[in-house]
């Protein structure tokens, strides 16, 4: 072997050895059976192995990608004291303007305050005396809130038990959560989005509830809104088809049950006259001492309760309406629509969940009313226990509603004073729900509610399909190109093929060691790299052929070919590198994966073409006098 070339072979050998070493864990992992994985998991080695393999994106593994945005307007509104209509209007305007792309809360808030001349210190006196001071404090509050949200979500997800979750802040008020291999997206979503705001409210007595419903009906009766409801009955079918039309709620009110009262379980509106006279009451049916609302009517009832005049009646009466958490179905009517309880509560809470120290899900003990039912047992801190003792002691015989995220879980009678601060929440659909509630109560309430603004879920079967299809495409594409090169360039094609395989191994090795994520578009990038990386070799080979045609010897042709081709290769590939970098900057998840593969694919292909292929050519031509070149 030529002495000059030895260092080059050493470099090539080292890189190859490194690539194989970097890919070894992935190879090992790929060949593990489920049982072997299980035993490795038990010995704690699995996580270590998993950290060294090529990470698969959610689109391949299956999983959930969610972007949450903290409700900053609500947080600010919660922080404000002495709120009045002017303040609410400002917040409302800001909320509307926030829907514009890239809009942020604080600049808009500042603008709105300037244009309306709102006296900020009136509402935020504890945050400072001047608008500037207050803003500094409020922005700090928002930052703190989002950081706390981040921490709490992390906590919840950790307890939920997902492998390698990522939870990151994105921009100022957003959080990106990635959960791989999630089996139940609904549950995961609830876990993330739940504010975990636990509150205890006294339930107002039946007479007071009846009275307020009477007053609401008096207000609603004969209003054009209700007239419209009745009048629109005939035009029902038409209205049903207009999705965005507000009258749709009306059509729902008069759903098919109305036409066929026999099937309606006597719960739905049967009587036009009653509806006209008592719009709200006609949609309620008694359930014990509570009212129930048919699930099909929930939307209509909500609409009525959201009527501004109704809201002000309820507010001045110091009360509020809240729905129950769970749908209830009469025994033996499981296929019938169910009912939600509607509670009338005091407007101020007696106690909130901040006092909860420990929350555990279990099955209710025998003997109690909740035997065998999933329950969450709470332990409160001493301050909470004192308040709880006082509240329960002062209201024996009354009902207290346990409310989580504005939904009533249960409203038991207070039988006696509870001094210990221990209490139980019932009303869960299953033990998993109880467990999740336990988790979120332990992790604490979110300081600001969060909304899901983007959500992408890939089911496990689609992910598996994508891997299979992606791999198949890579293999077929690669085989085609390999065969083509050998046919077209003969021996030199073989060298190019070697470089190509080397290239792919190296790209994968780089992905594995950079802990970059391979996504489906990333696999597409890999295939594209196969097609494009051959280009560098093609440019070189064509150049060598040209030089050979000019009558040069193989050795000089090779030298000339490589040196002339070099600038072309670099110039031509830099543009794709630029495109890949821009893509990486702009893209999320899958697209980033594509950009990463493209970027490394091109860089490595340049390297293999000008270094690896060249070395092989040189050693061929150096081996004595070379008379012909297989190209």
């Amino acid at each position, binding site marked *: 072997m030529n002495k000059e070339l030895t260092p080059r072979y050493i470099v090539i050998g080292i890189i190859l050895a490194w690539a194989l070493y970097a890919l070894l864990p992935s190879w090992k992992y790929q060949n593990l059976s489920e049982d072997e994985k299980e035993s490795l998991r038990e010995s704690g080695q699995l996580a270590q192995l998993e950290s060294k393999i090529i990470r698969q994106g959610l689109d391949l593994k299956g999983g959930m990608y969610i972007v949450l945005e903290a409700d900053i307007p609500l947080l600010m509104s919660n922080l404000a004291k002495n709120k009045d209509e002017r303040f609410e209007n400002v917040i409302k305007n800001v909320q509307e303007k926030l829907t514009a792309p890239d809009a942020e809360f604080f600049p808009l808030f500042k603008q709105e305050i300037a244009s309306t001349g709102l006296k900020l210190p009136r509402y935020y006196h504890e945050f400072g005396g001047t608008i500037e001071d207050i803003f500094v404090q409020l922005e700090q509050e928002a930052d703190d809130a989002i950081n706390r949200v981040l921490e709490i979500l992390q906590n919840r997800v950790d307890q939920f038990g997902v492998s390698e979750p990522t939870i990151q802040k994105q921009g100022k008020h957003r959080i990106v959560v990635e959960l791989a291999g999630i089996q139940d997206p609904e549950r995961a979503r609830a876990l993330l989005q739940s504010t975990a705001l636990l509150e205890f409210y006294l339930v107002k007595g039946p007479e007071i509830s009846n009275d307020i419903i009477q007053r609401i009906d008096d207000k609603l009766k004969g209003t054009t809104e209700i007239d419209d409801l009745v009048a629109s009955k005939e035009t029902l079918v038409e209205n049903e088809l207009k999705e965005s039309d507000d009258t749709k709620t009306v059509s729902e009110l008069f759903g098919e049950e109305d036409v066929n009262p026999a099937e309606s379980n006597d719960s739905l509106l049967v009587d036009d006259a009653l509806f006209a006279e008592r719009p709200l009451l006609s949609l309620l049916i008694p359930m014990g001492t509570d009212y129930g609302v048919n*699930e099909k009517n929930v*939307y209509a009832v909500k609409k009525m309760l959201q009527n501004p005049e109704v809201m002000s009646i309820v507010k001045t009466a110091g009360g509020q309406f809240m729905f129950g958490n769970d749908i209830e179905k009469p025994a033996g009517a499981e296929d019938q629509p169910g009912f939600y309880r509607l509670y009338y509560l005091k407007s101020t809470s007696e106690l909130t969940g901040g006092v909860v120290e420990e929350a555990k899900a279990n099955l209710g003990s025998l003997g109690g009313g909740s035997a065998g039912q999933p329950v969450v047992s709470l332990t409160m801190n001493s301050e909470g226990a004192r308040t709880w003792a006082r509240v329960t002691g002062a209201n024996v015989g009354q009902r207290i509603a346990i409310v989580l995220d504005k939904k009533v879980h249960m409203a038991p009678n207070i039988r006696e004073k509870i001094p210990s601060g221990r209490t139980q929440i019932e009303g869960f659909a299953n033990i998993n729900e109880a467990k999740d509630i336990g988790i979120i109560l332990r992790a604490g309430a979110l300081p600001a509610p969060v909304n899901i603004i983007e959500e*992408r879920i890939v089911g496990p079967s689609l992910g598996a399909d994508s891997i299979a299809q992606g791999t198949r495409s890579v293999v077929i594409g690669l085989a085609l190109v390999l065969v083509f090169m050998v046919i077209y360039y003969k021996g030199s094609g073989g060298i190019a093929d070697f470089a190509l395989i080397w290239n792919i191994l190296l790209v994968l090795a780089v992905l594995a060691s950079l802990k970059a994520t391979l996504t489906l578009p990333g696999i597409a990038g890999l295939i594209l790299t196969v097609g494009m990386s051959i*280009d560098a070799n093609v440019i070189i080979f064509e150049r060598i052929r040209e030089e050979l045609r000019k009558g040069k010897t193989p050795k000089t042709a090779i030298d000339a070919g490589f040196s002339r081709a070099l600038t072309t290769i670099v110039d031509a590939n830099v543009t794709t590198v630029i495109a890949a970098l821009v893509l990486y900057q702009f893209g999320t998840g899958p*697209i980033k994966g594509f950009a990463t593969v493209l970027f490394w694919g091109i860089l490595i292909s340049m390297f293999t073409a000008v270094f690896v292929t060249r070395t092989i050519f040189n050693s061929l031509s150096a081996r004595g006098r070379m008379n012909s070149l297989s190209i």
Partner: protein
Amino acid sequence: MRFIKDTHIDFMSQSRLSGLISLFLIAAGIISLGLNGGPKLGIDFNGGTMIAVNYTETVNIEEVRSALANVSLDGQHFDFSKAEIKHFGDDSNVAVRIATLDNEPENFSQKVVGFMRSIFPDKIPENKMDFILSIEKVGPKVGAELSGDAMMAVFSALVLILIYISIRFEFTFAVGAIAALAHDIMITLGFFSILGYEITLAVIAAFLTIVGYSLNDTIVIFDRIRENLKLNKRANYTDVINQSINESLSRTIITSVTTFFVVVILFLFGGEVIHNLAFALIIGVIVGTYSSIFVASPIVIRMHENKQD
């Protein structure tokens, strides 16, 4: 083996014809875009919900559509029959795309999945999670932001590349290259519009790749032109360009063919998820190769002639 022997094709004399072809393709695309009210944007940019589910047996799209005409979620009534409903991959999979609604109930996507499960109760996979292939939900604000980002990305890539080519070559070359790029993107957009393909995030990625690829091709030719101009200073400009294209023709064709192979395979075997991306790449490879010869080079000549006058 050699496909392309020494060729002496006068490509530049064909520039009138090729110009007409390009104009025709671009015009067709613009007309289609005009008729369809712009490109067909996916939910990534428009916002909305896209749900793909997997039944165990073939289902009829029209049955799904009529069922979706009457959906009741939380007592709210919806008619989704006008939504885009199609098979996803094979005939047992269905994808539904619903625009953002003003009055969306909580956990909307999950509820729609629940409803879709109830349409064919006996065609549901045993494992609950196998029913959902994918759910994508993008809020209107995020969609608008992604559109802005995408435009910004394409734009900044173009600017950066323009700068790079201006540094490495003459400015006229940069103009030729960018014109070729604009040409490629316009035609690809046009094909997307005519064939009813959706523009998604992945398609934008494909566009940027086309940008890179098409330039790659253009630059190889430009490089040859630059080299030949140096070697032969007194030669006729058009002749040099023709000669350079002929000299690099073999490489152009081989690379295009291998790349074309692999993107076609991606299109055929890569699955539904990257169908649009692969489609954009196929069009891009063809148009990108064509434009380096028939768009970029004639423009360089035209600008050169103007400079001489």
